[in-house]
């Protein structure tokens, strides 16, 4: 099961996603901001990141650039789950995938927990 870094600014939603991921057997570390997520990533060495783009201060995209600039973290899969509709990134999907390690993009209001867990199971590396 995977060690997941969950970057989610809303406390209620973060608790719900943490509960769902833990019940699927994953370990979860929650962060509300881009800066604390970078510090947490350094500490826990996550196997996967689940990211909201709308954060206070630095945005999720800024986080992605910073996160991906460290060679050790470049192969860590990132799932974006955001209030920003995927259509707004239609023109830059290739860049998100190839340059920033994004494996999947979910529009949060229409993404069920079941769909998120299925995607985590698909992209999380197998960890003993």
């Amino acid at each position, binding site marked *: 099961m995977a060690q997941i870094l969950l970057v989610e*600014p*809303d*406390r*209620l*939603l973060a608790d*719900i*996603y943490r*509960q*769902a991921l833990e*019940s699927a057997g994953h370990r979860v570390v929650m962060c*509300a*901001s881009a800066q*604390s997520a970078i510090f947490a990533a350094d500490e826990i060495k996550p196997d996967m990141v689940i990211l*909201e783009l*709308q*954060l*206070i*201060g630095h*945005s999720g995209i800024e986080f992605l650039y910073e996160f991906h600039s460290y060679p050790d973290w470049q192969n860590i899969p990132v799932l974006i789950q955001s*209030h*920003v509709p995927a259509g707004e990134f239609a023109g830059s999907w290739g860049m998100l995938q190839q340059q920033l390690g994004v494996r999947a993009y979910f529009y*949060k*209001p229409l993404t*069920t*927990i*079941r769909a998120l867990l299925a995607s985590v199971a698909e992209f999380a590396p197998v960890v003993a």
Partner: protein
Amino acid sequence: MAGAFAAPVLSQELLLTIAEQIKLPLLQIARQAEIARLASLPNLDDIQATADNALRLIDNYVLSVRLSCEQELLEMESVSVSSVLYDAGQELSSLAKSYGVNLELHIGGRFGPVMANRLGLQSALVSLGSALIEALPAQESPQLKLQLATHRCRYGIVAGLYSDTEQFTVEALRQGRKLQGSTRQPLTGLTHTAGAGIFVADAILNAMQLKLKVSRHNRLYGLGAVLQPNHQMQLI
């Protein structure tokens, strides 16, 4: 009444902000219901607090529009600030509990009555409080403490909400008002949401000829309304 409908409170920008904001509690309720089904452990308190918060936001928005359009509703009266703060705190307590925010009431001294519309003032403070409660954990505030407070200032009596985060600046509020409706997150330094509660409070206060201002209370930062004391009542 064509003139009344030109009031800024009926702006498309505010309506868009409300629409964007209302997705959050609906999403929370949907996911809370889903996790309850998966885990067979419904957290009914959180679901109720979330739904109540959404209903309050819509109610307060409707009030802001009605206060602007129907002048007879906007009766100014002599209001005790401390009792309005107390009632606002009561309304916000379940939401604060859901978000793990410690909500405190701080009345620094005795204040005479002020001139305001009681329902309007309370609704503005509740709207503002809801928005700040949602935002506080996302700001990674070390204390997660929000104070409903009042103090005297050069211009009158300020009633507002305060925390230990420094993001409350005049520039942030000015930019937010400008960006409202044209961006999903107009107050990027303050909240990860659309900040609708802040703009609804702004609209309600505007309808009462009052202003939402950046303010400081003791060593805390926040937003508040400057109210005029009712000198006539103080003489009695």
